[in-house]
């Protein structure tokens, strides 16, 4: 390298770790300590300009145009011809670490509803483009969920707020700080009696310390938390059972029998990625010697976890606590509460369950759902105790959330104070209470009463609109911070890019409150940890922490606790619920209502994220909307029907009956949607829709469920009135048809059946002899890429879909196009139901391009735009495609997607930065499809060729494979008999989709194996 005056070379730490692609660095390593000190010394010699801090990385933003112009950085099938003489713009000072055209990987964490998940972020020339899981982080294990994948889009979202606004007028940071200080002065006098701080769930040690500091300065100030209130019941339950707040987590790899009381732990839990992995690891057959686990689910709404259960009991929400009580009693828990009678059907089910549990003492787990009342949590703890699971499969630690309070109560107090005008100065750090708070507290009208309020947020949203001051927040990929995972593990979050829109972090705002406005969050976080550190060489420790993506040994150690005798439990909640049931008993038809965060946009925080809006929600496969979910029986009772649209139809438009919902005097309207397997006499409504100020994407989609909710019944209401309005509403559903029509697309059996006869799948005629062919067939010497997808492991979480979209520059087409059946996902998760519609079996089948060896699509392409590569890939050449769409017609799997319009955004600058430079951005009129992430294959091959070796197994991971929480997708070289994929394909459970067509797909599947309890199954 030429510039000798650059900072010192890298420490050794920054070597590629096993797995090839996981190759990331800490910013500090990049800096080299001298330059770093120089920076801290606030003296920056012009030519010592490595990107040592956010400040310098701002340079990259200036150069972004440059990096786009750099060769190969933006692959695109331009709609317009390239400019005659394109400019090429080099750096003035090239940062030591930047090798133009090569990505770098940095470790940080995403705060998912407060809880951290370790991630690695791919950065091209200083622009983060893709998020992967951090294999070494306990809450990630290398996997990610859809939301994490889509968070990069959130970073570049052009609708993010860019300016400080004061009562709607644009202002400056200085103006803000001076205004703030003025207010604080007056507060000092009253020791902050009028100062209120509202945060979401806080797990950040630094933030916590800062808040403590502020409460020290302003003793009378109050810190409120409101994050939807998902954690409240669990906290109450813990207090009820242990007399103290405790965090519960489970070690599912040791659990043979899992009972979930309405807990959607595979999707909605800070540890869901880990749980999914552990849960599935016990079901991989063959491969595990230990016996497969069995999941019993008791729930009302049809959750993702429920759809993966071996046995599922769909009962109305008010009945769950009662059933829990009975179950507890059967398991020998002493309780005062009277035991309600249960139906014989349930009786039998419960009997079998109890037997199963008793047979697996210490190897089972009872998991209460976060939305179940405290009593259920308490009972679960008691049951786990009774079964001797505590310390084996169930663990308790100190709460990860700092100062864990009851959010509902906290919000109530705040509103009260606002009403009494006790709260004069309100600082809101993130969150969007004006939208998320239940209607009955009427937060908006109270908010405006305070005489000084500030809202720090990514968007100028509903809350900002009501505030005196809105200040833009830095995205987590722009921020220095720290966060704890479900088990307390701390990750130091490092920014990947300077704040695009000049946002600031909560740390910086709190620092300002403490009168240190000049401190950067980098200093704040680092100084905090310097203070904590016992290391003699803090810098080294700090660098290691950043490099690894977590602070070693920061996890909480499990507490050795024992629940109080259950008799002491306050069963009032139980009564309340039962009374709900009672109410229901007398005035039929009264329907219960369940509120849940939307699987994609959660409580609305991701409402403006097009990727997530267009992501077909698990089970319903709806996009761009929420709906009133109900069982077929309930729908029939209410006369709710649907009509398949003449355009799009099952793959696009469904006209649903609009219903009017009335709860507690408040009304709203939404489309009714029939979900097989939903419990009768109750409906589920997803939150996060009906946003009024979300941005160009998310505004005015769906309907707002918060308009119905009350603070007491955050997640469940006992009697809601539903009326059919007669109107219809077009919902965009990507897969309405849920039957397999007797075609064996997903092959399934039971684990017992498998053990009896492992080859049971192969006993079909078509499988026996090899498909006849006239053609000699091609030899693939060298690599032959193939994929194996384990239907048994797929939980249907959509992570692969989002990951694929992010990796391959997938466009967002919008609801109108989805209605026509034109969504652009290269991989889709097909959902099929089987059996009794009131409680069906569910199967998920991810369908990417099968890369057929006798590809029907190639044969019919008139211009040879899709051909076969020497490694057996079914190449798609966008720039050769003329768009006859014949290939799509002839694709039996219908995995090809077409750019009917100019879907890719060639205009918005910020979105250009998001692009993966190694994948062509498709223009109008061309076909596209899954390529097995050929860009990754080529990179790996080139890397291997350069050090004259072969690509080793596992070196190449496709985007879908990398994201998958359960490792259901395995990719590799099928010419190498030792490779994981070859071995999977050799297994008796392996089968191909539609092989009778002699397409000879390279992608094959592993059959689904359920593990039913014979007692229930054969009843």
């Amino acid at each position: 390298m030429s510039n000798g005056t650059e900072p010192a070379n890298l420490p050794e730490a920054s070597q590629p770790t096993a797995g090839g692609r996981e190759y990331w660095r800490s910013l500090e390593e990049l800096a080299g300590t001298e330059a770093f000190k120089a920076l801290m010394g606030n003296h920056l010699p012009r030519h010592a300009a490595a990107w040592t801090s956010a400040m310098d990385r701002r340079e990259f933003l200036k150069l972004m145009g440059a990096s786009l112009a750099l060769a190969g950085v933006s692959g695109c099938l331009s709609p317009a011809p390239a400019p005659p003489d394109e400019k090429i713009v080099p750096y003035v000072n090239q940062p030591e670490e930047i090798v133009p055209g090569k990505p770098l990987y940095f470790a940080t964490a995403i705060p998912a509803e407060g809880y951290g998940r370790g991630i690695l972020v791919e950065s091209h020339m200083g622009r983060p483009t893709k998020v992967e899981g951090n294999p070494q982080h306990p809450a990630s294990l290398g996997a990610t969920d859809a939301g994490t994948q889509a968070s990069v889009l959130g970073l570049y979202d052009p609708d993010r707020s860019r300016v400080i606004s004061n009562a709607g007028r644009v202002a400056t940071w200085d103006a803000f700080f001076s205004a703030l200080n003025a207010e604080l002065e007056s507060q000092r006098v009253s020791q902050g009696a009028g100062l209120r701080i509202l945060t979401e769930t806080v797990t950040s040690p630094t933030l916590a310390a800062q808040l403590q500091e502020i409460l020290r300065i302003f003793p009378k100030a109050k810190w409120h938390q409101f994050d939807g209130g998902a954690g409240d019941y669990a906290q109450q339950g813990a207090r009820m059972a242990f007399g103290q707040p405790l965090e519960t987590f489970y070690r599912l790899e040791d659990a043979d029998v899992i009972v979930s009381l309405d807990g959607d732990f595979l999707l909605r839990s800070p540890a869901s990625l880990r749980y999914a992995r552990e849960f599935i690891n016990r079901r991989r057959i063959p491969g595990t010697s230990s016996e497969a686990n069995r999941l019993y689910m008791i729930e009302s709404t049809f959750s993702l976890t429920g759809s993966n259960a071996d046995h599922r009991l769909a009962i109305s929400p008010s009945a769950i606590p009662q059933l829990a009580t009975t179950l507890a009693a059967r398991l020998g828990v002493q309780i005062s509460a009277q035991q309600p009678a249960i139906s014989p059907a349930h009786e039998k089910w419960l009997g079998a369950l109890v037997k199963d549990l008793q047979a697996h003492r210490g190897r089972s787990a009872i998991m209460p759902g976060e939305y179940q009342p405290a009593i259920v949590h308490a009972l679960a703890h008691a049951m786990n105790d009774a079964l001797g699971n505590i310390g084996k499969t169930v663990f308790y630690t100190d709460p990860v959330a700092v100062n864990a309070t009851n959010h509902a109560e906290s919000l109530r107090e705040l509103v009260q104070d606002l009403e009494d005008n006790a709260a004069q100065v309100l600082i809101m750090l993130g969150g969007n209470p004006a939208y998320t708070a239940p209607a009955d507290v009427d937060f908006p009208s109270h908010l405006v009463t305070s005489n000084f309020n500030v809202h720090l947020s990514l968007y100028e949203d509903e809350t900002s609109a009501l505030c005196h001051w809105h200040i833009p927040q830095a995205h987590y990929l722009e921020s220095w911070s720290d966060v704890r995972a479900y088990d307390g593990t701390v990750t130091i979050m490092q920014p990947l890019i300077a704040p695009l829109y000049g946002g600031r972090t909560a740390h910086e705002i709190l620092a300002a409150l403490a009168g240190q406005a000049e401190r950067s969050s980098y200093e704040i976080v680092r100084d905090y940890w310097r203070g904590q550190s016992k290391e003699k060489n803090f810098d080294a420790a700090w660098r290691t922490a950043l490099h690894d993506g977590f602070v070693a040994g920061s996890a909480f150690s499990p507490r050795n606790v024992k629940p109080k005798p259950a008799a002491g439990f306050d069963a009032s909640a139980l009564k309340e619920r039962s009374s709900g049931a009672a109410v229901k008993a007398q005035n039929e038809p009264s329907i219960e209502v369940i509120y849940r965060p939307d699987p994609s946009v959660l409580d609305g925080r991701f409402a403006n994220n097009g990727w997530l809006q267009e992501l077909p929600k698990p089970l319903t496969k709806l996009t761009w909307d929420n709906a009133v979910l109900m069982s077929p029986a309930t729908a029939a009772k209410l006369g709710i029907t649907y009509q398949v649209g003449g355009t799009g139809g099952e793959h696009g438009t469904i006209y649903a009956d609009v219903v009017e919902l009335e709860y507690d005097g408040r009304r709203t309207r939404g489309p009714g949607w029939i979900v097989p397997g939903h419990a009768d006499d109750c409906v589920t409504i997803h939150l996060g829709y009906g946003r009024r100020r979300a941005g160009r994407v998310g505004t005015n989609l769906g309907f707002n469920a918060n308009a119905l909710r009350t603070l007491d019944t955050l997640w469940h209401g006992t009697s809601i009135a539903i009326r059919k309005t007669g109107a219809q509403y077009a919902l965009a559903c990507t897969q309405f048809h849920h039957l397999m029509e007797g075609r064996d697309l997903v092959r399934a059996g039971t684990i017992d059946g498998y053990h009896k006869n492992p080859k049971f799948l192969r006993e079909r005629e078509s499988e026996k002899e090899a498909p006849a062919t006239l053609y000699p067939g091609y030899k693939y010497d060298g690599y032959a890429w193939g994929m194996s997808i384990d239907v048994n492991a797929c939980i249907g979480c959509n992570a692969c879909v989002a990951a694929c979209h992010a990796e391959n520059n997938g466009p967002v087409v919008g609801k109108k196009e989805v209605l026509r059946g034109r969504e652009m996902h290269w991989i889709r998760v097909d959902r099929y139901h089987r059996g009794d519609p009131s409680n069906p079996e569910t199967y998920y089948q991810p369908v990417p391009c099968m890369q057929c060896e006798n590809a029907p699509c190639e044969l019919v392409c008139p211009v040879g735009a899709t051909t076969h590569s020497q490694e057996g890939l079914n190449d798609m050449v966008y720039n050769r495609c003329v768009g006859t769409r014949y290939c799509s017609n002839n694709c039996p799997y219908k995995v090809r997607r077409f750019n009917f319009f100019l879907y890719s955004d060639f205009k918005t600058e910020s979105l250009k930065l998001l692009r993966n430079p190694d994948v062509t951005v498709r223009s109008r009129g061309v076909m596209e499809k899954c390529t097995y992430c050929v860009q990754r294959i080529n990179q790996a091959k080139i890397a291997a060729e350069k050090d004259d070796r072969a690509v080793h197994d596992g070196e190449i991971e496709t985007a879908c494979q990398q994201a998958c929480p359960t490792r259901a997708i395995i990719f590799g070289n099928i010419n190498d008999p030792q490779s994981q994929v070859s071995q999977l394909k050799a297994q008796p459970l392996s089968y191909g989709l539609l092989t009778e067509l002699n397409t000879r797909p390279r992608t094959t599947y592993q059959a689904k194996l359920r593990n039913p309890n014979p007692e229930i199954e054969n009843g």
Partner: protein
Amino acid sequence: MARLPIYGLMAEFDSPEALLEAGRRAFAEGFRRMDAYSPFPVDGLAEAIGFHRTRVPLIVLIGGLLGCIGGFYLQYWVAVIDYPINIGGRPLNSWPSFIPVTFELTILLAALAAFFGVLALNRLPMPYHPVFNVERFELASRNRFFLCIEAADTNFELERTRRFLDEIGSLGTYEVEP
């Protein structure tokens, strides 16, 4: 040869039969450089005035063969020689798939050969021709039939030929300006 004062003599008839007869007589008389004109094809007329075989079919055959061989080789070259690439696992030379285009090209070239062949042989286009100088000739495309003996013919001799034409029942004999 020196430019003749006239192109030839033209006799008019009112029926194809008459023309046919006249043609035969003229041929028997030893006239060779002559031509008969009729509003529609009259069987045997060409033979009558001594024209027997046409080369059109041969031309068409050649065209057809060119199309056939060229057509197949084009596809073979593209698929096997120029850029051999695996298409849906089919062999490079998947000749069955090459048949339709081969066939179409055969027909195409044969047809083109036929069309342009006949034009060429007939020396068309020829918008100007002496026979048009005869006023009555416009009826050759209506209901009249003409026989024209060219002055270039060796035994053409104006008066004698005129008499001969009148004998064989010409309804009117006209001199054709060159």
